């Protein structure tokens, strides 16, 4: 490779990677959490996870829950009833509020409302992942652009590393200089996970682009039933106990287990939609009173459904989803190390100047603050969100939780802008919140629960994050220096 081409590729990789790395970090982090949406929802509402996952639901519960659905529809609220499943063993009478799914939680055996507070739940991270909580189409535009820049960064990075791709595949030198350590870590993660990043990032990019295309040029569905907004204005259809029972029985015959499916209005009649976990390709199919059997169709009817299957992985087993989540966190590590390298090289570049201008100084501080707010501020705001769902809320719960999340994230950016010790302080707060999550969990939920593994695994994850921050603090230059002074005094 000629030096000129190498320089061009380096410039592209750095200047595309850093600004959009911020968004990519958010997408990777929230994507990892979105893999475990029902589990996060249950952690935030511990009353919903007091009983074990099986048996999922009773006939009485289903009938009672359908009465609750009818009451919601009569009020003019476009609600749907999500059936209990292994991952989420309660009825959810949800409606979409423009950002998240919310609504009462009903017991699987009785169908009566459980005393749970309304929380943002797992769908908060899904929305943050798909649209960054921005209004349509700006969120989708930004996410699609981030996906595109991921492809550019991956291709330029791969090209730069092509000659040493195989020989240095597992190279990591922990005893080398700090810059070299971070570069090795960036390359180690980046080269090994490049096929996965291409597949996941590429499928996400295609899905977002399709959404944008549909927004620009809405598809016409003349032959299909009226959409939910049209249905919203109509009076609710008759929902009899016999209809509910018949649909549930039909579902059981056709797709085995009706768990995780949902009852929703489709035009003028009530339909029972098949669960997303049914096939690899995500395709909405429903049975109604007038159409009791699913029409035969291909396993993957559209290209869109294939990409949904690849990107969402809702069909996958628990272990695969765990590894998918871990791969997302690996993506965070790659992007975070890349940001660290960018900051270091910018600082080195400034060191060669005799005098640093005020604008250069401000620029440097801005880069640093944005990196801090992304790498430390986002996990901190996430942990604070988890805490806020378990502590008394001074405002309406969802407003309070969302407000706290975004305020804390914003404050971490401001603090990183004004303070030179922001990294250390943010790490400290992350450590405290992470290590304290288990205590908070035990103090704010009944000790005996039907799903101890769920609470234990989320607490353990938070504790791991806290532990990692503790280690980072111990090796932080500030404390290392203090330790050296103490050692020399002794």
């Amino acid at each position, binding site marked *: 490779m000629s030096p000129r081409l190498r320089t061009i590729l380096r410039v592209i990789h750095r200047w595309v990677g850093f600004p959009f790395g911020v968004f990519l970090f958010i997408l990777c982090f929230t994507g990892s959490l979105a893999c475990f949406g029902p589990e996060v929802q249950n952690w935030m509402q511990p009353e919903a996870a007091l009983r074990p996952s099986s048996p999922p639901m009773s006939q009485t519960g289903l009938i009672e829950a359908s009465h609750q659905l009818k009451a919601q529809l009569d009020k003019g609220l476009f609600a749907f009833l999500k059936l209990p499943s292994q991952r989420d063993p309660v009825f959810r009478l949800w409606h979409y509020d423009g950002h998240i799914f919310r609504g009462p939680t009903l017991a699987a055996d009785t169908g009566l409302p459980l005393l749970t507070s309304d929380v943002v739940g797992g769908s908060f991270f899904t929305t943050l992942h798909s649209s960054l909580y921005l209004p349509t189409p700006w969120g989708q535009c930004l996410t699609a652009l981030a996906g595109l820049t991921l492809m550019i960064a991956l291709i330029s990075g791969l090209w730069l590393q092509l000659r040493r791709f195989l*020989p240095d595949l597992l190279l990591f030198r922990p*005893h080398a200089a700090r810059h070299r350590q971070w570069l090795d870590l960036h390359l180690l*993660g980046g080269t*090994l996970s490049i096929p996965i990043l291409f597949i996941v990032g590429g499928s996400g990019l295609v899905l977002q682009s399709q959404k944008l295309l549909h927004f620009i040029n809405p598809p016409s569905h003349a032959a299909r039933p009226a959409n939910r907004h049209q249905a919203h204005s109509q009076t609710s259809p008759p929902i009899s106990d016999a209809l509910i029972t018949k649909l549930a029985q039909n579902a059981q015959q056709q797709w085995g287990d009706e768990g995780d499916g949902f009852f929703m209005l489709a035009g003028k009649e009530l339909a029972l939609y098949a669960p997303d976990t049914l096939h690899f390709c995500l395709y909405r199919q429903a049975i109604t009173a007038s159409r009791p059997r699913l029409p035969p169709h291909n396993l993957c009817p559209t290209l869109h459904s294939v990409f949904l299957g690849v990107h969402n992985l809702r069909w996958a087993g628990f272990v*695969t989803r765990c*590894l998918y989540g871990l791969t997302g966190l690996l993506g965070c590590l790659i992007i975070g190390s890349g940001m660290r390298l960018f900051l270091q090289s910018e600082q080195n570049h400034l060191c060669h100047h005799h005098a640093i201008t005020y604008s250069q100084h401000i620029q440097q501080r801005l880069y640093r603050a944005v990196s801090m707010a992304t790498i430390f501020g986002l996990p901190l705001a996430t942990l604070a969100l988890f805490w806020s769902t378990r502590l008394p809320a001074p405002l309406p719960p969802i407003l309070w939780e969302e407000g706290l999340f975004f305020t804390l994230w914003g404050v971490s950016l401001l603090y990183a802008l004004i303070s030179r010790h922001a990294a250390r302080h943010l790490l400290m707060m992350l450590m405290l919140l992470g290590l304290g999550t288990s205590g908070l969990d035990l103090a704010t939920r009944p000790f005996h629960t039907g799903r101890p593994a769920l609470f234990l695994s989320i607490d353990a994850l938070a504790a791991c994050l806290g532990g990692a921050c503790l280690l980072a603090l111990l090796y932080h230059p500030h404390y290392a220096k203090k330790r050296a002074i103490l050692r020399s005094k002794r």
Partner: protein
Amino acid sequence: MITLLILLPLWGFIGLCYLNSLPPHRRQNPCHLPRSTPWQRSCYIAGPFIALALSYRLAGLDGLFLWGFSAPLMGVFLGIALPYLPQKLMRK
């Protein structure tokens, strides 16, 4: 779970065989173990394909994704953990 328990050591073995096959002038890597043999070389070339077939056979489509996700995670773990191994376990 069983598929993952098979895949992880398999990827670890493939990684070690790969490291051993590196030529001497590339041996700046602190992760080197005993010298390579032709048998090891064929193992690390054929290993991923065997792992792919095995995981598909054991867990179907889920297995393919497990194969894909476990490779980078095991590789990163190996890359980070091996340099911390005691020096006496590594032959120059």
